[in-house]
């Protein structure tokens, strides 16, 4: 809601952003913020598990042996960029530029796909080296935490594609604007979670 308020103020007029014009849409956006809070707590639980278990490497490799610095740096860079392009899509939406908005969404989706491909190849090389979910508590926690984020991103890719199709069919209406706005919130949220994964899992992992 805070975002909407500041947007209204910066317009300096009574105008309400498109996605907030109908009361039902405003309710859904508010509800989605609450959902994001629960999802954040779910990740918090997984982070807690990871922090308890990350030294429990058993007979398997530790973080230093499996983390690939260029790999996770590239993933980070791509995902952060995709958050930026997703923001540009919302910006275009608020200026009523449907074509630009859809173009930025497509860029976002492509960046998301390349993020997922990199992550999958990282997982594949770990597994090829014998570091699997079944090896140790550390690896169970690692694959689950990072994999849950990856599953979220994959879901987001499919979701954003569906919204893109609906934008093409229905044009920019309060309903499609609300849907696009919600999926963008989701996307930014995944970016925030990734920043924690980057610091707590990868950076601390290669520093230890």
């Amino acid at each position, binding site marked *: 809601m805070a975002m909407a308020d500041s947007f209204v103020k910066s317009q300096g007029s009574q105008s309400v952003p498109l996605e907030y014009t109908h009361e039902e849409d405003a309710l859904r956006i508010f509800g989605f913020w609450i959902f994001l809070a629960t999802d954040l707590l779910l990740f918090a*639980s997984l982070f807690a598990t990871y922090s*308890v278990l990350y030294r429990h490497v058993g007979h398997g490799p530790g973080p230093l042996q499996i983390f690939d610095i260029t790999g996770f740096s590239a993933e980070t860079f791509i995902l952060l960029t995709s958050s930026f392009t997703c923001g540009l899509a919302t910006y275009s939406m608020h200026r009523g530029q449907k074509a630009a908005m859809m173009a930025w969404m497509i860029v976002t989706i492509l960046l998301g796909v390349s993020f997922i491909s990199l992550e999958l190849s990282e997982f594949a090389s770990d597994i090829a080296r014998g570091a699997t979910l079944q090896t140790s508590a550390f690896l169970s926690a690692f694959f689950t935490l990072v994999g849950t984020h990856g599953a979220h991103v994959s879901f987001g890719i499919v979701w954003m594609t*569906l919204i893109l199709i609906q934008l093409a069919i229905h044009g920019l209406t309060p309903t499609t604007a609300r849907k696009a706005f919600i999926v963008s919130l989701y996307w930014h949220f995944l970016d925030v979670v990734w920043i924690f994964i980057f610091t707590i899992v990868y950076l601390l992992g290669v520093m230890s």
Partner: protein
Amino acid sequence: MLYNVENFASHFFVLGDPLIYGADVSIVLVSLAIVFVLTYYKKWGWLWREWLTTVDHKKIGIMYMIAALLMLFRGGVDAILMRTQLIMPNMPFLKAQHYNEIFTTHGTIMILFMAMPFIFAMMNIAVPLQIGARDVAFPYLNAISFWLFFFAAMLLNLSFVIGGSPDAGWTSYAPLAGLTFDKGPGENYYLLALQITGIGSMATGINFFVTIMKMRAPGMTLMRMPLFTWSILAACIIIIFAFPPLTAALTLLLMDRLAGAHFFTIFDGGNPMMYVNMFWMWGHPEVYIVVLPAFGVFSEVVATFSKKRTFGYASMVASLIAIAVISFFTWVHHFFTMGAGPGVNSFFAVATMIIAIPTGVKVFNWLFTMYQGRIRTKLPMLWAIAFIPNFAIGGASGVMLAVAPADYQFHNSYFLVAHFHQVLIGGVVFGMLAGMYYWWPKMFGFMLNERLGRIAFWFFNIGFYVCFLPQYWLGWMGMTRRIYTYLPGMGWTFWNIISTFGAYLMGVGFVFIVLQILYSIRYGERDLTGDPWDGRTLEWSLPSPVPHYNFARIPEVTGRDAWWTMKEAKQKGEMQPELEPLKPIHMPNDSGRPFILSVLFFIFGFGMVFTWYPMAAVAFIGILLSLILRSFEYDTDHTLSVDEIRRTEAAYGRV
């Protein structure tokens, strides 16, 4: 070939136990009877149109209530079986394994499939009406929540005839519940059923939080909200914060069991206590999720039947909030014996004891509300009054358990069993029954028979004390929980006989509740006023049963106890505000998809239980497809014309 089929069947179906065969027969007979009745009276279409596809919060509430009563029956039968086994030393009635399965399903069902749906029933029925709203924020999601709960309950109940029930306690602690010590599908049933119903509960928490925050009638500020709505708001906040750790704990344990992960195993670095922590990070707040709404019901009932405003409204609200917050800092009291050290244990002990303060404030406020009130001991009030001494004793034994060093003695004894039943039955069950009696006329438009209700009340109440007070003594004498039998020389026999006798009395009480409902469906007195108790809050301003759009005109609220204020103004002959002209109303369309989606979840869960992954995968794709279909659905609501509203209102005699 034949051997293979036989071998499969003997593992798939639970064989060799006469009790289970009895259950098989009764399940088949009841299903056939339902199919027969529906076909004979040509009710299939009615069932689908009016109930299975409804998104009306009032009907969803009624379905929750019926399901909760059925589950109370199932859990109650479990309880009677266990108490029968324990009546005498060395009873040959239940075997050890069977006893394990029964206490596990009893606890799981009572908490997640009885208490939770019962509070969801009450909040669905009352909250939108109390705040002057036409529906909840997300009616379609509300239907999904209900059906997810319903099919999760079916999944768990299926376990005792197919595959075997979970047997590691309702807490399902690792490593006992891990694959090493628990091979069968039972634990998978537990994990999947809880996960599926948990999604529904989380959605309900979000739904009602948004409803209460954003959909109140004009003039209803937060501090003018009825206390029941306040209690639901507090419960929703707890749901939002508490369910994610449970989701995580269940998922990780399932990964251990199905994918060979090492979160909670003993080898390869797993840490079983991590599960215990996460479980209780949800588990303790969970008991407040179920008891705060009961407190809310008592606040409404006590004010209405004392004909007084609630004493100390602001302190009631403050204590709800305080309880909601502190409930997140007490979870370790469930395992002081983990040995976290004196610092940690002291913190959690003190936090637990502090909760007694806001709870005490509430008890005194109820008492002061009754003080010098004109008390009418109708059924809801009867249960509310009975709750107070009950909760006082249960609370006191709770504070005793919170004393960490003493808990090393009480832990896992019958003292604990007596304590939590005292607060769960005396608090939650009494509260939900009070709520059911209170809002019954609102739901159905007729009254429940008082006489049968009073008989039920006395059987249940006396039975309660007879059943559970002896268990405090048994705990002190060293009887531990979750044991299926004991030896004659222990000195426990006498109190166990008494306790079992009390359980039977409660069973009789339950039968009278059922009789009361059946009798009143036929002979119950109709309520044409819509306000049979002379109520104080907005739901009583509406006719019963409430028309599906609730309010033809959204009311203006000028103070607390909105409906009472309006009635007073009318009596004093004050100027009534001009009625605004009726306007068309926007209503959500009914949909069969929540039902189908939940069936798919059921199939998905069943496939996962038996690790039949192709089945689970197909169902999962179905789930995704129905989500996509919903996303592409733009025609999701319709408009009621002024004419239609006027006709409906006229039929109720209100124009």
